[in-house]
């Protein structure tokens, strides 16, 4: 009975409420959603008769959902790539020991302090296409004034751009955050390494390419995980900025889920979308968790 000391009892008691709450409110509800997604609940009356995977089958047949999946992939790739590249470049610039670095750091980080709703409203206006009759606004107006009328575009109202315009807004908001992560990583790299490289005749560019970038790999991985799960679940930005868009060109699964569940009362279909979102986020995060668990054991 060595294990059952007073310390142990209190620690179990202290942790029990949150464990129970998580079991019920996270895992319990995930299980419930999974159940509903396999049932025939389609309307205000709860109907939990199991129908197998029929909801999923219908979902993947639906044109709107196919567009949504396509949009999510486009959005995720664009948003990740541009945030990482811009974030890294900003970090490199700030790493040059410039004057009033703190000021620039804050400026680039500020967008992250906004909620996606605010970002959405601002960018809805900035990327508003305007029209020939009422004149341009936002970015298109800027192009007009700068004599770059050729660059004007329909932005999110043009189905061939659609979700990519939303990715611009998301990048604006999150690249500062990536910069902060990279900058922290760069500051963690000892100056001796750079010195040694310089002594061996490496140029600054080569130092970043061969010394800094490889050492920042774990940070890139974390950034990918954090941005990736934001992008898979994105709802608020789309909702505030564009809505489902022309022919669903800016629609995402989370928006479809809201629409079908609460406007169409198709609860089972909504639950299937929720489960698919969960699985896609899990596919991103579980390998990461396994990887960190392994590296920690190695240490």
């Amino acid at each position, binding site marked *: 009975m060595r294990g059952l000391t007073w310390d142990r009892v209190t620690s179990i008691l202290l942790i029990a409420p949150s464990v129970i709450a998580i079991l019920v409110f996270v895992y319990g509800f995930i299980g419930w959603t999974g159940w509903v997604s396999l049932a025939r609940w*389609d*309307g*205000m*009356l*709860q109907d939990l008769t199991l129908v197998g995977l029929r909801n999923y089958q219908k979902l993947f047949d639906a*044109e*709107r959902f196919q567009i949504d999946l396509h949009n999510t992939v486009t959005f995720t790739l664009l948003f990740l790539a541009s945030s990482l590249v811009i974030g890294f470049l900003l970090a490199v610039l700030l790493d040059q020991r410039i004057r009033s670095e703190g000021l620039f750091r804050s400026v680039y980080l500020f967008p992250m302090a906004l909620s996606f709703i605010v970002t959405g409203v601002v960018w*809805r206006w900035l990327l*508003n*296409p*305007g*029209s*020939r*009759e*009422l004149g341009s606004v936002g970015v298109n107006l800027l192009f007009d004034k700068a004599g770059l009328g050729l660059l004007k575009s*329909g932005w*999110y*109202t043009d*189905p061939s751009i659609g979700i990519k315009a939303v990715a611009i807004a998301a990048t604006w908001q999150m690249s500062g955050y990536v910069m902060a992560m990279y900058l922290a990583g760069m500051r963690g790299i000892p100056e001796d390494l750079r010195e040694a490289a310089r002594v061996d005749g490496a140029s600054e560019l080569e130092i970043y390419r061969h010394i800094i970038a490889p050492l920042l790999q774990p940070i890139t991985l974390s950034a990918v995980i954090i941005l990736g799960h934001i992008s898979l679940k994105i709802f608020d930005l789309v909702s505030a900025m*564009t*809505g*489902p*868009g*022309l*022919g*669903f*060109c800016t629609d995402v699964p989370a928006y479809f889920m*809201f*629409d*079908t*569940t*609460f*406007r*169409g*009362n*198709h609860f089972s279909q909504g639950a299937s979308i929720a489960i698919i979102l969960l699985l896609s986020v899990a596919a991103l995060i579980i390998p990461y968790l396994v990887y960190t668990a392994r590296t920690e054991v190695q240490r």
Partner: protein
Amino acid sequence: MKGFRFYGFVVALVVLGMIAAACGPTPPPAAPKGKLEIFSWWTAGGEAEGLNALYDVYKKKYPGVEIINATVAGGAGAQAKAVLTTRMLGGDPPDSFQVHAGHELIDTWVVTGKMEPLTSLYKSEGWDKAFPKGVLDIVSYKGDYWSVPVNIHRSNVLWYSKKVFADNKLEPPKTFDEFFKVADALKAKGIVPLVMGTKDGWEAGHVFEDVLAGTLGAEAYNGLWTGKTAWTDPKVTEALNNFKKMLAYINTDHSALTWDGAGQYLIDGKGGMMIMGDWTNGWFMSKNFTGYGWAPTPGASGIFVALSDSFGLPKGAKNRDNVIAWLKVLGSKEGQDAFNPKKGSIPARIDPDKNLYNDYLKSAMADWAKDAIVPSPIHGAAASEGWATAYKDAIAVFVAKQDVAATQKALQQACVDAKVCK
């Protein structure tokens, strides 16, 4: 010990109070007290003023009741419905909530057993004679009445800029042929012939329901929603083709605008026409814009595509007596005449005081009395919410791809999924 004694005192008081309440003579059913929670999506401009006018009437009659104004903003109730669904399913219904009369009321709430019938209230207040038959029909199910309609809105109104039409010597079009002629004339002048905002997803479906009514006529249009007219009918193809042709005349930035954003074109004299429900009238007034005229949408003279806001009594309402009093105010002539001139809609009752209403509403009342009344799907009157959502999505895709055959198939499938067509 002091604290303990204090609590003992409180407990004793509460117990005494309970005994007194139980044994004392029952007080007469005098002034109602307590609270009354009213759920709606009326938050802006005239809507909110109308709702407040109703509250004023209620407060004058029942000063003891505290009204809780539970509103959720968002056009056509899109956001509010999500909150309402959550509350109803969670067993926390508001005392009374706004719901479109028709299938939204019946299919979503009545068939599923979430509402109390109001038939005895209809009898005692004489409402079965005060409302026209068309209205009574859409709030009935299995011989009972289920909600109290406060107003009627018209969906199929063509708004036009008087100045633009006068400058170009144009008349509001009555048929689709005339519409396209007018549209060509406006386009040649660099004016947007038909303005539309489609950002929120439902607006195109709204315009298309009016195109359907204008192309099919009242009877065949009604049949679409009852299963008598097939969605595969060549007339539906014609309606889609008409709509497709109209889409060639709309503003390029429509998917960035809501309907009111699009209305700005008319106010600025840069747009000629707009098809939207008659809440547009109130919006124009709130913008101090007076240079607008109205006409029925093309092909739909003599047809009144209607929707109606109503309130009901959900089962498990916490303040049932106060709700009954609220419903009595809503159904009364006094209540309807207080609400509707501000909201910019016509009363559901047949006996309003016409002097209280503006020119547009007077003309709508005249049409309401003589036109064929048909229900709107996008505003919950003609179809269940599941069907209306599928219809809305099919039309949203049509605006982008303009594929007539595929859209007709999707519309047919939506009807089958709603278990109305086979």
